C-alpha cells in the first residue's frame, strides 16, 4: 500500500490555483522532498495533505484513508514538524506533551510522555517552562510533540529555517533516530540537503508537478538545472 497516493489534487480559490492537478504516490517508508521556488504551492500542498486545508478537488489517500472524507481518521496518522514549535511557552515540557497526548486520547499518556522526553533527552528539564529553553531544546521538544502519537506519516515544513548549524546537526540526528519505518514528506528550499535526505523528489512550479521520481533515477546536475529554470519561471 502506498503511504500517500495523490490524484489530481487541486487547491484553488476563484481562478487562482495554488495547487493544480497534482498526482504522485510514494510507498511506505519513503522520504519525499518537495522542491520549488517561493509561491510554487509547496506549503499549500503540504497543508492540504496534512488536513490543515481542504482540497478543492481531486483526492489524496493517506495509508488508504481519504483525507477529504475521513480527515479525523487520517489525522491520527499524521505528524507535522514545522519551523514554529507549536509549544506553549508558559507550560512546562511535560505539560505541553501531556496536553497533546491527552488530546490524541493516548491510553497511557503519562508513560508515553516520559518515553518521548527520554528520546529527545529532555527528561531532566521536564518541569521547566518552554520559555527557558534554548532554540535547540525547543526544536527537540517540538519533535517529541509531533511524534507523541507515533504517526506513520510525518510532514516537515521547512524545518531548518531559523536553525543554527549546530541545531541542524542535532535535528538531523534526531530525524535518523525517529526515522524507523515512517514516511517523511518534507518541503525544503535547500536543494542540496533536501536531495541528500530523500528517497523520492518532487518539483513544483506554479502549483503543477514539473518532475517527480525516485532519487535513484534522478541525476542531480540535471535536477538542479531544472530547479534553476523553475525559479526563473516565477510565481504562479
Amino acid at each position, binding site marked *: 500500500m502506498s503511504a500517500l497516493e495523490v*490524484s*489530481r489534487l487541486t487547491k484553488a*480559490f*476563484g*481562478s*487562482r490555483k495554488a495547487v493544480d492537478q497534482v498526482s504522485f504516490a510514494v510507498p511506505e517508508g519513503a522520504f519525499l522532498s518537495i522542491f520549488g521556488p517561493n509561491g510554487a504551492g509547496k506549503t499549500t500542498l503540504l497543508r492540504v495533505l496534512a488536513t490543515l486545508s*481542504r482540497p*478543492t*478537488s*481531486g*483526492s489524496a489517500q493517506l495509508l488508504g484513508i481519504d483525507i477529504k472524507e475521513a480527515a479525523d481518521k487520517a489525522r491520527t496518522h499524521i505528524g507535522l514538524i514545522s519551523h514554529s514549535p507549536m509549544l506553549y511557552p508558559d507550560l512546562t515540557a511535560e505539560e505541553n506533551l501531556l496536553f497533546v497526548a491527552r488530546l490524541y486520547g493516548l491510553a497511557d499518556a503519562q508513560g508515553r510522555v516520559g518515553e518521548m522526553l527520554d528520546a529527545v533527552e529532555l527528561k531532566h528539564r521536564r518541569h521547566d517552562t518552554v520559555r527557558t529553553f534554548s532554540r535547540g531544546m525547543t526544536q527537540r521538544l517540538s519533535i517529541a510533540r509531533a511524534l507523541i502519537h507515533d504517526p506513520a506519516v510525518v510532514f516537515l515544513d521547512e524545518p531548518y529555517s531559523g536553525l543554527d548549524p549546530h541545531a541542524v546537526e542535532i535535528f538531523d540526528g534526531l530525524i535518523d533516530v525517529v526515522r524507523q519505518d515512517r514516511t517523511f514528506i518534507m518541503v525544503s528550499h535547500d536543494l542540496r540537503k533536501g536531495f541528500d535526505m530523500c528517497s523520492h523528489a518532487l518539483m513544483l512550479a506554479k502549483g503543477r508537478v514539473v518532475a517527480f521520481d525516485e532519487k535513484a533515477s534522478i541525476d542531480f546536475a540535471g535536477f538542479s538545472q531544472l530547479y534553476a529554470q523553475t525559479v526563473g519561471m516565477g510565481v504562479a
Partner: protein
Amino acid sequence: MNDTKKAVRLPEAGGMWDKAAPFALLAGALLATLGFILTFTTAPLVLGATVNGVELIGDQMVSNKLLLSQKIFYFHVPVAIASMLALAFTAYYGVRFLMTKEARFDTCAKTATETALVFIICTMVSGELWTRFEWGVWWTWEPRLTTYLILMLLVIAYFILRNAIDDPERRASYAAVFGIITFVDVPICFMITRMIPSSVHPVVFRTDSGMSPDMLVPFLICFFGMILIAFGLYRLRFRQARLAERVALIKEHLED
C-alpha cells in the same frame, strides 16, 4: 473526470439579468419618481397619523404637526427596507459561500453589502433630515435610530475587516461569517419599535392602523421602485466586479 463534487451553479454576469439591469434601474427610477409625484398630489397630508400624543424630544414639543415633512416617509421607508433586503442577501450568499467555498459567492456577498451600504446611507440622511425637522434635533439616541446606526457601523466594519486580510480565501470566509452574524441585527432593528414601546419612532407596519389606499398606492409604487433600483445597482456592480476579475485573470495569463 472522477470528481464526485456536485457542480454548483454559479451566478455569472452577462446573462439576461444584466441585460435587464439598466431597464430595472430606469423602471425603478421612473416608478420611484411617479410614486413621489403621487405622494405630493394624491396622498393626503397626515395629521399625526404616525405619532400619537405629545412627545418631548430635544427640548421641543412634538405633537400632531406632521405635515409636508411626512412625505419623506415614501422615500425613507422603502430605502430602509431595500437596505435590509440587501443585507439578507449578504447573509444568504455568506451561507452559500461557506457551504461551497466558491469565490463567486464571496463576490456576490460583497456586492450585496455594497448595495446595502448605499441604501443605508440614503436612509440615514433622509432620516436625519426628518428628525431635524420633526423632532428638532439632528440626532437622538432613540432605539430605532440607534440600532440602525449600529447596522451601519456593522456594514462599515464588514469592509474594514475585508481590507485587513490579505489571503483571499480567509478574507472570504471571515467576511461570510461576519455577514451572517451582522444579519442578526436586521430583525432587531426592524422589530425594535415594537419591542420598546417608549420609542417615539413611528411604527409603520402594523395591522391595526393601516394606511389609507391614497397613501398605500404611492407607497407601494415607491417601494417597488426602490427594490428595482437596488436590483439594478446590484447587477451592474456585480457585472463590473466580474469583469474586473476576468481582466485580472487575463493579465495573469499574459504575464506567463
